[in-house]
Structures are given as C-alpha cells and as structure tokens.
C-alpha cells in the first residue's frame, strides 16, 4: 500500500496535467491554426521562430509567459479561450523539451482570456527584448 501511495504521489501531478489536454484535439487545432507557419514539429522556418526545445524559456518570466498568449498568432486566432489554453499547454509538453520545467503551471482558459485582449502589435523587437531579460535573469541567478 505504501508503495502504491508513493507511486501515486509521484505520478499524480503529471496525470492531472495530462488530463486537461486532449492530445488529438490539441494536435488538430495546432495543425489547423499553427502548423502552417510553425511547421509540424515546431522547428519553424525563415522568420517564423523556432518553438521546438525553446518555447519553455518564455515561462521563466511573467512577461514571457504573457507573451505566448499575446503574440498575434495566439491572441487573434479563431480558437476560443479553452482551445487556445489547451493548444499552448500541448505545445509546451510536446515541443518544449528540456526548456519546459516538469512542474510548469499550465495555462487556464481564464488566464488566456484575460491576456489575449491585449494582442501585441510589434512582435520581433518585443520578443528580442524578452529573451534578453530572460538571459539577464538567468545570469543573476547563476551568480
């Protein structure tokens, strides 16, 4: 019984996270609304940023976390709040690789709904600035 309890304690949070994602539905929405530019595995191309193994970096700061929702491809997509939250969580789990912490806090529909009302107008400079801030934060934490 103790062993079972221990296993459930360890796996419980992961199972809870997965329960909020319907992988088939999330993948379909990714294909219909994101994949055309971000490519099937999130590698991206040309000026389309790479998400694969990197997208989790943005969760390291609050403004970075907000950015993944406020970026126009997310904010003004035809997906509703629940669908967008699910796709974002699916992208982080499926494509984030080591850039996403195992215990990351998944997006909720309410959070996404609040953030997407302010879509970004200028993205590239904003994104560069965010990455700079994340790098500086890492540097401070390392020292």
């Amino acid at each position, binding site marked *: *019984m*103790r*062993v*079972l309890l*221990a*296993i*459930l304690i360890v*796996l419980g949070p*992961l*199972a809870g*996270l*997965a*329960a909020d*994602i319907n*992988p*088939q*539905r999330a*993948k*379909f*929405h990714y*294909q*219909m*609304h994101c*994949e*055309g*530019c971000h*490519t*099937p595995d999130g590698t991206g*191309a*040309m000026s*389309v940023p790479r998400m694969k193994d990197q997208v989790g970096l943005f969760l390291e700061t609050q403004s970075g976390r907000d950015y993944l929702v406020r970026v126009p*491809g997310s904010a003004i997509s*035809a997906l509703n709040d629940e669908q967008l939250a699910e796709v974002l969580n699916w992208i982080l*789990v*499926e494509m984030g690789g080591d850039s996403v912490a195992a215990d990351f806090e998944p997006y909720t529909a309410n959070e996404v709904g609040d953030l997407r009302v302010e879509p970004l107008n200028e993205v590239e400079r904003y994104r560069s600035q965010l990455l700079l801030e994340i790098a500086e934060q890492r540097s401070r934490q390392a020292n």
Partner: protein
Amino acid sequence: MKIIDRLFERKARSLAQHSSRRSMLRGLGGFLVGASALPLLPVAREASAQTGPTTPQEEGDQTSCDYWRYCAIDGFLCSCCGGTANSCPPGTEMSPITWIGTCRNPVDGRNYVISYNDCCGKSGCGSCLCQRDEGDRPIYRSDKTNDVNWCLGTTSSTYHCSSAIVVGLAFDNK
C-alpha cells in the same frame, strides 16, 4: 573478497528474516498498478492517440481536380507537373510554410487534415489549374487564405505548383 561475501550473506539473511513473499507480491503489485498510470503521461497519451489511419484508403485520379484531397486547393496540381500529390517535381523545392485545410475522404467518410505545400523555384507549371477553395477565407485571415503565394521559407519565392499531403485525421467533436 571475504568481507564482500560476508556483507552479502548478512544482507541476504536480514532480507529473508525481515520480509515475506507476500510483501514482495505487495510491492510488485503496487509497482504494476503504478506503472499502469504511466500511459496517462502526456507523451505516451499522444503516441497512443493516433488511432486513425495515417495513410487512408483512397481512390481517384491524382491528376484530376475532383480528387478528394484537392477540396481546398487553388493552383496547379503537382501531379500534372512531374511530381505527385505528395511530392514536388524535380528542380523545385517544397515550401515548409504552408496553408492547411480539411477534406472528406469519400472512401471511409472521414475528414483528414491536408497540407497544401507549394513547390517553388520554377515558373508556374501551367497544367491542371484547380480552384476548389473549400474553407478558403478572405486575405485578412492570412493563415486561412490560399490567395497568397505560400512560397515562403524556400530559396526562391517563384510558385510552380501545389501538393496536397495528408498530415492527419481531423478531430471529431462527436
């Protein structure tokens, strides 16, 4: 070596005295029940979620505009230009950036996700112009319009023809 022998002997005896086969079964049972929870993990679930056929049964002529995969196409069919519905003609490059729609396969009645990757690098093929446009949206929905040149991410932005690749099964809400 004797020290190691004695150490192992002591440990083995201690284990035998303080545990039972029942406790081993209990531990093993707990492990198996726990392991059964593993498919709930995101990656495993994703892998097992691909229940639909990856290459659907299909029929029809790939060089005909009526072919089921072309329901949302707008361009020259690569099948008529030295390529196929899945591949670009020699001397052209497939754009990694593309527009995506869904088409119903009449053979199994299911909807599939179709990626209309353009083939780029040579001037327009000129054969088998096909414009069916199902699901096409005005240009202000730039991700859902086929009225733009999708030769993006390729060496050349010159459009030659369009492919129609099945990339998955559409999600059915029912």
